[in-house]
């Protein structure tokens, strides 16, 4: 019995001597590892073949990285050197637009097939450089359109089905994205206007980009023709008296870096706040910095009703 008393006393002694001011807290603050700031560059350049009113200026955003706990604003780089090379030759310098804190290129960027290199440098930082090869335009052979054809998800409504036939080249990896527009003749004044349409694909291969929407890699149809299935509801785009004149599909071919960046960015965004999700590394193709330089090519196909 005496032994028991001594043991209880020792136990209590250990317990109390283990106590300190912070002892009852189950959390401990840890030092974040130090971070050395690097340049962070974002640029997605496009080579469309359709009306340039739909095309924005080529831009390059130049920023910097900060440590995850740093309580600072990002730096501005008005004096950075931002140059685009094509096949080894300087194509043009980007100029700084102070209103938007971005570097812009010429109105007609004249991006065609070739190998492009983006060089960015700024005082106090390692220079960044990376190369992209402009992908080929999608080879669209034809299309069909059927109204109110396919049920989708839990809706009772039927979606229109547009099938766009693409011939995929066999000697390269291709990644396709798309946009769909309706040309509508107004029932009010007879003018024709273009609507951006929400469209989706029921293809099980579809992956989701952060900003480009759905992406279809050519894994299962490489070198063959492929029917891209697009579902949309034309009835939503039409007001009373409106007439659907045509549907325009823009098919984009993305570089692999663009595809990986978009999908990892999308996964990273979805994983935020989800403790069960595996961590996601957002893709970067700059070796000594962050961000991404990508290219995409585009071709428009117009289907008239």
């Amino acid at each position, binding site marked *: 019995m005496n*032994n*028991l008393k001594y*043991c*209880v006393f020792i*136990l209590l002694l*250990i*317990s109390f001597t*283990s106590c300190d001011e912070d*002892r009852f807290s*189950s*959390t*401990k*603050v*840890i*030092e974040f*590892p130090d*971070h050395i700031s690097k340049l*962070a560059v*974002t*640029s*997605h*350049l*496009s080579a469309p073949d359709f009306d340039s009113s*739909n*095309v*924005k*200026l080529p*831009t*390059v*955003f130049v*920023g910097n*990285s*900060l440590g*995850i*706990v740093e*309580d600072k604003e*990002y730096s501005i780089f008005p004096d950075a050197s931002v140059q685009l090379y094509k096949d080894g030759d300087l194509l043009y310098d980007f100029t700084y637009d102070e209103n*938007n*804190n*971005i570097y*812009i290129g010429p109105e007609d960027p004249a991006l065609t097939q070739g190998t492009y290199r983006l060089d960015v440098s700024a005082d106090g930082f390692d220079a960044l450089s990376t190369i992209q090869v402009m992908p080929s335009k999608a080879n669209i052979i034809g299309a069909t359109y059927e109204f109110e054809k396919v049920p989708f998800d839990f809706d009772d409504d039927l979606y229109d089905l547009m099938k766009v036939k693409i011939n995929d080249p066999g000697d390269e990896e291709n990644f396709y994205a798309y946009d769909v527009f309706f040309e509508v003749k107004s029932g009010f004044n007879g003018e024709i206007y273009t609507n951006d349409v929400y469209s989706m694909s029921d293809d099980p291969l579809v992956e989701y980009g952060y*900003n480009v929407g759905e992406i279809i890699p050519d894994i299962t149809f490489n070198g063959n023709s492929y029917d891209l299935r697009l579902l949309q509801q034309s009835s939503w785009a039409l007001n009373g008296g409106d007439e659907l004149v045509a549907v325009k599909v*823009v098919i984009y071919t993305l570089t692999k870096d663009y595809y990986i960046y978009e999908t*990892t*960015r999308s*996964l*990273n965004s979805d*994983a935020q706040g*989800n*403790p*069960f*999700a*595996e*961590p*996601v*590394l*957002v*893709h970067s193709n700059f070796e000594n910095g*962050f*961000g991404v330089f990508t290219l995409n090519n585009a071709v428009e196909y117009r289907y008239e009703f």
Partner: protein
Amino acid sequence: MKRNNILTFLILVLFTNISFTQIDTQGKFTISGYIEDEKTGEKLIAANVFDAKSLAGNTTNTYGFYSLTLPKDSVYLSFSYIGYQTKVIPFFLDKDLTINIKLSDDLTLEEVEVVGERIGRIEEETQMSRIDVPIEQIKRMPALLGEVDVLKTLQLLPGVQSGGEGQSGLYVRGGSPDQNLVLLDGVPIYNVSHVLGIFSVFNADAIKNVTLTKGGFPARYGGRLSSVLEINMKEGNTKEWHGEGSIGLISSKLTLEGPIKTDKTSILVSARRTYADLIFRPIIKSAASSEGGQITPKLYFYDLNAKLQHKINDKHRLFLSAYSGADVFYNKYEEDDVVSEGGIDWGNLVSALRWNYQINNKLFLNTTVTYSNYDINFLAGYEDKDAANNEKFSAKYISGIEDVTGKLDFDFIPTPNHYIRFGGSATHHTYRPGALSFKLQSGDDQPLDTLIGSQKQTSMEYDLYVEDDMKFGNFKANVGLHASGFKVNETFYTSLQPRIGMRYLLDNGVALKGAFTTMTQFVNLLTSEALSLPSDLWVPSTENVKPQESWQAAIGAAKTINDKFEISVEGFYKQMKNVVSYKEGASFFTGFGTDWQTKITQGDGEAYGAEFFIQKKKGRTTGWIGYTLSWNYRTFPEINGGETYPFRYDRRHDLSIVASHQLNDRISFSGAWVFGTGNAVSLPTARYSTSGNSAPWGTWFNDVEVLGDKNAYRMSNYHRLDLSVEFIKKKKRFERKWIISVYNAYWNKNPYYLFAEENYDSATGTSKRELKEISILPIIPSVAYSFKF
């Protein structure tokens, strides 16, 4: 080509040995029988039988059976087992004999020295990387909340790690928990954790022995890459009724065993349950009712073990064993007409029917039929009973795996120099890899009742093996071949796995050991690296998911010093192929309509290191020091940009110091101190803004968090001291103990989880991001009362 050469060599060796054994047994006689505990009738596993004249010997198998073939001559036969009085029988051998031995654990009797007996010592064992942990040693370990734990004790051994604070899963030589074959009486158990890993499912009072094999796997084992943990239940006292139990702070247990018919039929039943919910339920209910509601919480786990054995005659025995266990975390809240509920429960149900048949004095057959089921359910529900609203909603996530197996295992002992095992099994697996059942009734709307997610899948797994444990003077070898087949849908995988282990005893008593083994695993566990949860999914290899494969090479040396200390040093190298992992961004909790195969990816693993182990097994003070230095990497094409990264449980240093001291008949102390390098985790290290105006998709402005290299950051090192003291009082037919223990005696805040949090400082009006470690187990003193009668 190289693997084919190894296979050809092994087949030739096995065939040649089996042929020669026929010639070798002429003019010899066989002594066979069973060795059991005198008081309880429990068969003793790996008890030694040794003839001091011919220096030949053997050990009993899992059912206490031995066979020793010796030349016609006088023999000086000793039967021994650690912790028991050795029995010696000298006689003249001129015919086949059956000698059944009962050994006494009364060590006050005069100790008998047997010259030349070395069997059972670490340097005598052919197999390396194998540890037998006596259950009595486990019971003396310091206990968390009064519960001694089998897996926690195994985590103190070199080469074996825990996943971290409170986790009872095993990470053996770079492997993950699904790569451990955990067998309870020969039946695989798929989830070995209670209370999110703080306790294991094994009730130490129902267990007879524990054996962990980390490498050098004999051919009779298959289906997992990294380890085999065999836990055998007691069979039940065939002489008289006994019981033991304990009452602790959060749980109690009781074990009863005894004969239904003396020396013929016995039964053992053991049960354990926590009762935190019973204690706190009145308090919680009272608090809830003061708010106008009614709460019904359920928070408990239980284990129930049962075993029945029946001796038909000297040659036939039957065993029926079963285990059922579950964890339940559930809460129901009712207020007015509204009822909401939520919870999670998971559990195992396993059963084995076994028939031992001693075919003759050299051939023993064990036939087993087993059943194992594991499932987990998440539940959330809501009901508004008001007739005007009539709303009811429930969502249930269901996942699990079920096995039915039939197997035959033969032990053939033609001579003391050969112990041949062969057999086969067939297993039917049924997988339920995560489905969500969703029901909704709202007003007069059409009710919704749907099931989303992966449907059931089945597969068949077949195994055949043959191995020979052979001795040639100072050289011993275990050579074997394990063949597997796995059929799932239209895909059929096959695998031939050569196994070889060797030992050479030098004149100075040092044993040099080496082993090379290949393993294949067809059943995979999808587990989150972020959190270890019982929601981990068991899935089969399929046409798209290749079986996991590994090969492991190990070399080492071992020696017993002064008959007290066993020292071993081992180095190992392991390569794994087709290990599975969730892809970046994936989790079991999202994308229920998505096939699980699209959420995972496969890659390679590599682990290597060295283990040092010194153990004292005898005397008043026993214990061990174990140290492991190891490296552990993974490479997945779709993770971390295809770059190799440290596995989460890459623990560079792992040290355990364990000691127990019997002060006298009434007091004993024990303690354990562990140290391990912190787990490797991925952290966001930086952020940058993507901001651009780019064709054709418009402009976006937001921050991207940059994840550093995968698992490049280390959590704080883990270290902990556990202490325990027992006060024992023995009477003629009753023994009681007061067990006082303290877990984490100096209250180190061992990390469980790491996260980044934004904290607002009202004084400065700014937010600051902080990185925090959460620990879950503080210093935990406990008192338990245990009894035996």
